[in-house]
């Protein structure tokens, strides 16, 4: 899988699941793993941390 930001190679774990946050080992960018209509995985930009985000 290629990083949408730097085009680096992002290895995908066998047990990866939809919604997981994936970090590019090259540029450090974080992305959300999502399933496309054909069932394959792709990456999309993660929402910038919201003001009400937290524990």
């Amino acid at each position, binding site marked *: 899988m290629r990083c949408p930001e730097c085009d680096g190679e992002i290895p995908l774990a066998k047990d990866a699941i*939809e*919604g997981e946050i994936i970090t590019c080992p090259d540029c450090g960018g974080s992305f959300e*793993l999502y399933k496309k209509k054909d069932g394959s995985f792709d990456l999309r930009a993660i929402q910038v941390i919201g003001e*009400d*985000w937290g*524990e």
Partner: protein
Amino acid sequence: MVYDYIRWEEKAIADAAKKRGVNLKLIDSKDVSLLLDSNYEEEFGNVVLQRCLSYFRSLHLTAALEAKGISVINNFKVALTAGNKLLTTLALINAGIPTPRTALSFTSESAIKSLEKLGYPSVLKPTIGSWGRLVALLKDRDSAEAIFEDREHMFPLYQVYYIQEYVKRPPRDIRSIVIDDKVVAAIYRVSLSGNWKTNMALGAKAENCPITKELEDICVKASKAVGGGILGVDCMESPNGLLVHEVNNTTEFKNTVPTTGVDIPGLIIDYLVKYRK
């Protein structure tokens, strides 16, 4: 389990469910579309673990689920209280639990009066939010006025001036994970040198913390004060003993599990199963 994003915690909970043969359905809150007068409860099952990062999303979704008779952990009242520092402080005070002295104001002028009552330095915190974000140490009147001026130009939530005394303590605090009113694990969060904040998100280091009777007692009381469930209770070691300064509603435990060796995701699943019965 409803979530915004699958972080280490949510993935570990999903793995723990799989290992125990528990059918845990993962529902992305970003995909939710509920016609409120329809029977949407069927897609959520009878117990929902709420793991949304967004406080407002979590509250609204929890309200919609509870309205259909679904049990949500943590429930709406707990989420509302523990997700808001002012409501948490009020709950702790009402339960007689030691907590830092706290003042409330709504204008920068009255916030200065609050600071005069608490003394300098004091700590200004947003009532909602985590990870040390927008938490400011007010060392003197000049720095307070400068920060308050910024606040006046921010979203109205930031004009709720929640100010706490600065507690003299070692450069660490204690995060206890409390499930069903039992302390299952605790860590010291040791701040990075030169940083007064102890948030893991700011680089603090985790060390195992023994669960003493004093720690257990105060954390269980704090859990009960906000309504129980699955919580992260934060304590400070003041010269006069432990103080509870925060209770976290969707607590993180990524650093607590490897530091303490406690299977927190497994205990969460066990609690959900027990709750379902």
